[in-house]
């Protein structure tokens, strides 16, 4: 398979890009909801439109009413979400959540997928328990209780956790912190007794949540995958989420890059367009090079995941690490090259820097993934 979008994927991109530029723009979505202090942090009307366009259920199987598409296609949507900084439940719900549900029982799929596909339902992904992403460091307890389980513990950095209809929760039914064995995934409904979510607005205006579980009772039917063997499904969720976040990060970097290059062509100082200064030209050219490389890693990771290639996990970590490093350089240089105006809230370049910062922490930053690459390479 050549490492570029095929005709169908190019057609999808040609649909998504203008749609998102019009409906998902910074002005109509991010600033709109932020300035109204929206408690959800995203627009439900756009989420409905995502459903009408078929995006919301694109990764769900056709037998479940989805489109049965792959990570390359999801990445096309995510890149435009990134480019427009669109607040959207797409990554957590349609990518990570649907990946988990695709491995769930028929009953559970029937319970949740129709709502997601229709743009009515939003999921929260509850994995992190500390400030840094460490998926094996799950301490939250799920004790057997009657026919089901009793959940106790705390989760944090649950995006849209306070407004999600259902949370996918990683808890420990066995083993100890640091082990992959003994982790079990649960689907927990938002109104379960003993569950409380405290929303926390993040630097990029997304709504995160701290979620507390105080003797939350779930039945055995709430288990996704196998008891104690949740790591298998969790790994798929993480690969989907990491690759998706990398695609969104490339969109963020590309948007910031376009903005910065345009500014270099407009802004005049010392009687010249500042883009004519070699001190800025070389830095801009370096950013371009980094972004092209990052984009290649993300597409490679998406293709390998879609093919079920055994080399996918390595490339997923390469993609998340490289996209993070590249986009981070672009947004920082973008703010610097904009000069004083880059420090203002009125100008959008700062919003790119904020979004990049938040995306970097989602499911492992560049350091986490570089370390994973070293581990996978045996050192």
């Amino acid at each position, binding site marked *: 398979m050549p490492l*570029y979008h095929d005709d169908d994927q190019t057609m999808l991109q040609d649909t998504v890009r203008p749609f998102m530029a019009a409906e998902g723009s910074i002005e109509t979505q991010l600033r709109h909801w932020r300035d109204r202090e929206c408690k959800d942090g995203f627009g439900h009307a756009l989420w409905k439109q995502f459903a009408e366009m078929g995006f919301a259920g694109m990764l769900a199987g056709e037998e479940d009413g989805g489109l049965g598409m792959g990570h390359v296609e999801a990445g096309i949507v995510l890149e435009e979400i990134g480019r427009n900084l669109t607040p959207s439940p797409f990554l957590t719900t349609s990518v990570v959540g649907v990946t988990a549900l695709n491995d769930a029982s028929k009953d559970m799929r029937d319970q949740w997928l129709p709502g997601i596909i229709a743009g009515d339902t939003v999921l929260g992904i509850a994995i992190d328990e500390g400030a840094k992403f460490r998926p094996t460091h799950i301490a939250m307890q799920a004790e057997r209780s009657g026919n089901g389980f009793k959940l106790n513990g705390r989760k944090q950095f649950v995006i849209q956790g306070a407004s999600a209809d259902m949370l996918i929760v990683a808890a420990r039914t066995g083993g100890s912190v640091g082990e992959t064995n003994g982790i079990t995934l649960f689907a927990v409904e938002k109104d379960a007794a003993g569950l409380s979510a405290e929303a926390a607005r993040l630097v990029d205006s997304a709504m995160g949540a701290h979620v507390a579980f105080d003797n939350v009772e779930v039945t055995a039917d709430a288990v996704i995958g196998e008891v104690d063997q949740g790591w298998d499904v969790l790994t798929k969720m993480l690969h989907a989420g990491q690759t998706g976040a990398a695609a969104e990060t490339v969109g963020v970097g590309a948007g910031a890059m376009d903005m910065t290059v345009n500014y270099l062509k407009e802004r005049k100082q010392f009687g010249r367009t500042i883009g*004519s200064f070699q001190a800025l030209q*070389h830095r801009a050219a370096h950013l371009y090079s980094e972004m*092209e*490389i990052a984009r290649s890693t993300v597409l490679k990771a998406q293709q390998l995941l879609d093919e079920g290639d055994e080399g996918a996990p390595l490339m997923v970590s390469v993609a998340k690490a490289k996209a993070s490093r590249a986009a981070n350089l672009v947004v920082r240089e973008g703010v610097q090259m904009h000069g004083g105006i880059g420090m203002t809230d009125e100008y959008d370049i700062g919003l790119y820097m904020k979004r990049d910062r938040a995306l970097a922490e989602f499911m492992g930053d560049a350091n986490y993934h570089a*370390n994973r690459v070293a581990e996978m390479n045996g050192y």
Partner: protein
Amino acid sequence: MPDLESFRSETRAWLEANCPAEMREPVRDEADIYWGGRNATFKNDAQKAWFEACLEKGYTVPEWPTDYGGAGLSPAEGKVLKQEMARIKARPPLSSFGIWMLGPALLHFGTEAQKQRFLNEIARGEIRWCQGYSEPGSGSDLVSLQTFGEDKGDHWVVNGSKIWTSYADQADWIFCLVRTDKADKYRGITFMLFDMASEGVSTKPILLISGSSPFCETFFDDVQVPKDYGDGVTGYVGEINRGWDVAKYLLGHEREMISGMGGGGGMGSLGKAVMPSLGEDAMGRLDDPLLRAQLAELDVEALAFKAMAERFMDELKAKKNHPATPNMMKYAGTELNKRRHELIMASGGSEALEWDSEASNGGAKSRDWLRTKANSIEGGTSEVMLNVISKRILELPDA
């Protein structure tokens, strides 16, 4: 694509039958590379057998047309062959500037008679070519070159000098940029072809910081270059005074080639390779945490560049990429290769400093490390690459 899959299995079987085990070992020294040419000798029987097998199959230049000594493979088939050769770590059967540089220029600009003669000679490894581009006063500003060819009707008389001429002391012929019109900077250069045995040509190797002398100074003292070698084989490529077009086209190829060599994405993990010598800590990690972190970042960058190179080649074949993309590839690939060799030295510690001991394989690490410093200078410096990216791709304004 079933056809491509059957080509892959045929290729795999052919390589298995024809590529000797010795030709699957890493290249250790200059003699392990077969360059061809009038004075060529094979290092051993395996090198000879491998070359001859490939020659018969057209695999010294697999994607060239069969009329010119190639195998006429499609780009997709060529990619499969490269992948299969890489899989068994097969060495190239023949290396030459004729294959990498002059060949592509002739395929694009040459006359039929030139192609018939020169391309077949290159494919068969009969003539070893060198490249006469840079001059002492014309490095990054190549178009200012001063070597002059005075028009004498049916021939030119060439005077001047070139520098950084790779292996000029071992080459048979030279493709050379010569000024033929002093009044027009860009449209006053001719891309000439002539024999290094011609009267008035002399070479002098340059000793480099790596201790080797792959480059020469080349001097031209009243060298006669015919405009026609007979049978329509002209002594120049493209049009007279339009050699800069050929040179630019060729620089693009050179940048692709250098970017393909750099990066080291296909070389495997350096961290993994040095783990046994550096040891591991109680957690099973390389026992030097900050070096390990740098090696991890290198792995990320190398694998990322490998993906970039794959995309670049795929897009190139589908004619999808920006024509200035090779400049980006050259920049990123050479900078990455330099970084890799810095870490090879850091991982090797004091043992990597040895310059001529047997244990160090004749100082291979330190010599290779020094050699890589030229990567971001030759074929256009990194700074020139960044200039091209900012002007041609980002379309930033001139000063």
